[in-house]
């Protein structure tokens, strides 16, 4: 009799709530009672609220058991879960979980499905098909498909990827680079991490396609050090791809050379800014550069460089497989395709939701997220990381689309959605925005370096009820200066959350005073 496949995710969220202990218990109990199983450590489907999500393959279908703890394992075996038996943890077939089937999985479709470290599994699920197709159709065809897809940078800035790639392809020079920004430092975001832990070879393949398209023989991944498990999975995946001849010289006799070097960050938030990241990749302090020159012209070590976020790059393989027009057929207006939204903070069903642009915040938070974890009303939602505005409940019907968000003084950013219930004190969060900027500022420009510290002081005076109107005006003026005169988004966008608190939640400054 064949061994029954049991899947237990090795992904940070799952492991953070006990997946390793569950896997160990399954191995021990199956050994003890002689069950013939094959334990597979897959990635995550992204439904973090169900983790650890254990799946058993029964007659070709995967049956899910949610929120399994090590102490459940004995009783799962007693309930014959290896044949899909009934148990209080049993959810039913994975492919029937509404949270998953209601998504538009384009970039994350292999996540959870495959063993991320098995090249056979990857190849059986269309792995390296797009790269092979790129080799046969040529670089110009790849550039045309990416441009036609309308794909924009998913790291937050939303710059058209096709134009960036074209610029690098056309830039003179023998040596060019692909630099993958995996410094996912925004609170409320984890889509890069889920992708790298669940489908690392998907990223590797897409980076090779980017290299082939623009004429770069070397790629770098700049991964934040806060992701040690990701580092372990990604470095093994790179070695595996290299051993199989998918990285290195003359890949599969295509005449194309490409290899990837994995670098670790060291805890600096600003290194997520593209030029600071390049400085850090060169072994220096992560201090932002003036632009121009753009990295596409003078990037890493002064050479033309494609700097793209993980999700941006990973979206490319399917654009090559299925065509740019198909990708452009999803989404709205100038926001084409899908975004991996991340439901985080005070939310009942947190996790990753890859969905076409145009869905509203309310649909994401209520239909997917199930409302707040606390069950209390939503007070504010921060979209796009610590530099994103706090959106009040009355704006929850805004569609997720780059331009619609700009219109309400907010940004879609990297798609992180952090929900706060009505117990949140927004004055405290405005103070935190300034404080975070003061801690993380690289120090190169004055508005950011000094402005953030002064910002904390002004907010403190407002909270203390000291000359509140004068300090309100001062804070607005400070925000203007930071926004207009900072070199990068760190100082330039820290005012966004602060202004949104002043605009929508000014009463929280008063309540702070009363509380004192």
């Amino acid at each position: 009799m064949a061994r029954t496949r049991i899947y237990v995710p090795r992904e940070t969220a799952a492991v953070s709530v006990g997946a390793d202990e569950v896997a160990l218990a399954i191995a021990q109990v199956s050994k003890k009672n002689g069950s013939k199983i094959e334990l597979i450590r897959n990635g995550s489907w992204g439904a973090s609220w169900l983790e650890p999500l254990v799946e058993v393959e029964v007659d070709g279908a995967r049956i899910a058991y949610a929120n399994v703890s090590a102490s459940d394992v004995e009783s799962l075996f007693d309930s014959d879960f290896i044949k899909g038996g009934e148990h209080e943890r049993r959810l039913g077939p994975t492919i029937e979980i509404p949270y998953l089937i209601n998504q538009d999985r384009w970039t994350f479709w292999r996540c959870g499905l495959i063993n991320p470290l098995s090249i056979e599994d990857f190849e059986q699920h269309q792995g390296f098909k797009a790269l092979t197709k790129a080799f046969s159709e040529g670089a110009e065809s790849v550039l045309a498909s990416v441009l036609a897809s309308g794909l924009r940078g998913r790291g937050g800035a939303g710059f058209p990827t096709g134009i960036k790639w074209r610029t690098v392809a056309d830039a003179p020079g023998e040596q060019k680079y692909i630099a993958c920004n995996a410094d996912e430092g925004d609170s409320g975001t984890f889509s890069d991490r889920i992708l790298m832990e669940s489908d690392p070879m998907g990223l590797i393949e897409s980076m090779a396609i980017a290299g082939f398209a623009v004429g770069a023989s070397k790629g770098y991944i700049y991964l934040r050090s806060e992701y040690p498990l990701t580092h372990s999975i990604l470095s093994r995946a790179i070695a595996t791809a290299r051993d199989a001849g998918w990285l290195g010289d003359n890949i599969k006799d295509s005449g194309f050379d490409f290899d990837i070097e994995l670098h670790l960050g060291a805890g600096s938030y600003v290194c997520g800014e593209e030029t600071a990241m390049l400085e850090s990749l060169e072994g220096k302090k992560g201090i932002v550069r003036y632009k121009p020159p753009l990295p596409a012209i003078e990037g890493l070590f002064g050479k033309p460089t494609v700097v793209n976020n993980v999700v941006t790059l990973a979206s490319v393989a399917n654009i090559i497989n299925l065509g740019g027009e198909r990708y452009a057929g999803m989404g709205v207006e100038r926001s084409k395709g899908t975004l991996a939204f991340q439901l985080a903070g005070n939310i009942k069903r947190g996790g990753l939701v890859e969905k076409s642009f145009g869905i509203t915040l309310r649909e994401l938070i209520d239909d997917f997220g199930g409302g707040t974890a606390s069950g209390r009303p939503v007070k504010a939602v921060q979209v796009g990381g610590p530099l994103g505005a706090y959106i009040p409940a009355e704006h929850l019907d805004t569609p997720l689309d780059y331009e619609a968000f700009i219109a309400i003084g907010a940004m879609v950013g990297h798609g992180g959605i952090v929900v706060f219930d009505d117990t949140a004190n927004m004055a405290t969060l405005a103070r935190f925005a300034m404080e975070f900027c003061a801690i993380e500022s690289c120090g190169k420009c004055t508005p950011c370096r000094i402005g953030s510290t002064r910002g904390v002081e002004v907010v403190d005076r407002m909270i203390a009820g000291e000359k509140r109107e004068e300090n309100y005006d001062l804070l607005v003026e400070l925000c203007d200066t930071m926004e207009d005169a900072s070199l990068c988004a760190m100082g330039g966008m820290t005012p966004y959350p602060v202004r949104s608190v002043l605009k929508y939640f000014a009463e929280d400054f008063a309540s702070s005073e009363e509380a004192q």
Partner: protein
Amino acid sequence: MAKINKTTTSEIVAEFNSKSEMLVQILQTIVGRFGWIPEETIRQLADELNLSRADVHGVVEYYHDFRTSEPGKHIVKICQAEACQAMGSRELTDYAKKTLAMSFHDTENDITLEPIYCLGNCACSPAVMINGKTHGRVDEARFNTLLDELRGSD
């Protein structure tokens, strides 16, 4: 944790082919293996990588990960970022400081307590990292259990 010395420093520099552009990676490797970067290591790195001491010092000072004093045997980091705040990390931080009778960046009884800004575990907030492992959905009771496990491991 082992103590870094001249030989181990040279070995790490050699692992990165003595390339100065690998300085951040070299420092990260040193912190990963030895926990911190002593002053004499900074001097040695400057010599071996043909950089000025100011260059190396600047990089060490710039990044949060590069500690210049010896940490405790165990490093406990509590996420301070917004998603964790939405799930009570401020309260958890106060509780941890009280329970451990220490502030951030202090080292007492083999434990170093540090803030961290996002572990990417924002759907399972609040998050805590202990000795490089991320834990999610950490309430006060679970924090105590994790501390007990830590003390039990000594």
